[in-house]
């Protein structure tokens, strides 16, 4: 083989080898990066799941503690106030003083009942979610903060178990709080529906409009939104926020197998 032929062979083989190597490097980089990215996503998902589970546990513990405190307030302080009232009746006091003390005790009792009710709404335990939501909307209406209406399209007493009822009640409470605090709304409608075996809870307002992104939901500051998401997940449902045109927001909560929860 002469010098030129040798150069040509080296050139062709070398070029083929180099091109193969370059292609191999590129394919390897793409494949490896994809694997790395998939692994990282999997880890992020696992971390997110663990966070949600932790949040669930925290929320459950919080509810348990609130229930205990509500009972303590009702049974302990409530009974003590009643006993105090009875003692004062039997005391030799001027009638005017007795009335004054009695009024004070009544005011304290009302406060204790209110706090106890906020901690664990007795109506929710006694009469179920529908009655509790009706009362909640009535309370907001009475406070003349916002014109709040409640509707439902079914007559069943209770659709969910106690835990699910409490979770949904807390979600509505949190959403209404957010509307009062930030939305500048004048009207809110809470609606419960049963459609094709699906349970739908809708909260619509005519405020400035709010549609949180995935980023907003994962922000460290948005604990309320995270709590809502976690509670909805607890009951096996989904939640969607949608900005309405020209103004307002609709929050749709959907539970497919509501009988399970």
């Amino acid at each position, binding site marked *: 083989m002469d010098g030129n032929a040798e150069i*040509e062979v080296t050139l062709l083989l070398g070029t083929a080898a180099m*091109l193969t190597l370059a292609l191999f490097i590129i394919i390897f*980089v793409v494949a490896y990066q994809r694997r790395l990215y998939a692994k990282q996503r999997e880890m992020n998902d696992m971390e997110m799941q663990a966070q949600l589970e932790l949040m669930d546990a925290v929320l459950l513990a919080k509810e348990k503690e609130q229930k205990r405190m509500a009972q303590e307030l009702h049974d302990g302080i409530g009974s003590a106030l009643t006993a105090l009232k009875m003692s004062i009746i039997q005391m030799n006091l001027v009638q005017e003083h007795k009335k004054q003390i009695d009024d004070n005790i009544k005011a304290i009792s009302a406060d204790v009942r209110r706090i106890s009710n906020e901690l664990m709404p007795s109506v929710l335990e006694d009469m179920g979610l529908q009655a509790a939501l009706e009362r909640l909307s009535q309370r907001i209406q009475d406070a003349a903060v916002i014109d709040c209406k409640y509707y439902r399209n079914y007559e069943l007493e209770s659709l969910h178990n106690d835990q699910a009822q409490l979770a949904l009640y807390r979600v509505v409470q949190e959403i209404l709080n957010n509307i009062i605090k930030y939305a500048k709304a004048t009207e809110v409608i809470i609606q419960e529906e049963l459609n094709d075996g699906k349970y739908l809870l809708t909260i619509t307002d005519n405020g400035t409009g709010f549609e949180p992104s995935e980023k907003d939901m994962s922000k460290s500051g948005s604990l309320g939104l995270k709590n809502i998401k976690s509670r909805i997940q607890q009951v096996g449902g989904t939640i969607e926020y949608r900005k309405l045109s020209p103004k307002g927001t609709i929050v749709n909560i959907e539970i497919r197998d509501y009988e399970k929860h």
Partner: protein
Amino acid sequence: MRIDIISAFTILIPLITAGIAYKHLNKTLKKLSVFILFSACTEVLAAFYSMNGWYNMSISHLYAFIQVPLIAWLFHDILKGISRKAVIYLTVGYLLFSVISLIFWEDLDQFNSNQRYAAAICLFFFCALYYIQIFIDTKIMRIELDPYFWISASVLIYIAGTLFLFIYANELIASGKFDYWYLNNILNIFLNLGLTLSLWMGMRKSK
């Protein structure tokens, strides 16, 4: 139509894309546009020399001398930390080597083989540093949508395919074997298409 002419004209594809997308491009891809404009200018200059029957090897020297610093300028933006320093050192080393090669081994009438394969080694390192960065930094969601991936992939294929051609260029020219330059022309088309894709991805990303 001759493949060398087609290949020379394909520089218009990234050039036009850069012109259309320029205001949407980030700082790094604007630097890529400068490189594309420089490549187009050297193509025009080479064609002008060729049409007048002048010997145009000096343009190859000029191109190789400016090409690596321009691409280094680009990779300096893409890379982070110590890799950036490596890009600067490699470029300075390359320029020194180019000057030495020009003075002692390959004058302006000869094909600049030494300079070209030194350039290929430099560019290979730039691409390798970029790939290493990808492995360390897993932020890129889909690599095929990353404009810098297309720059590095097309540059890598071009230098891999032309390395041996440039090493033996003087011998091939001396023996009158010009057919092998088709390889350079074909790979140049791929390079221009890769750079166009990069600009397009950059424009999409910014929108």
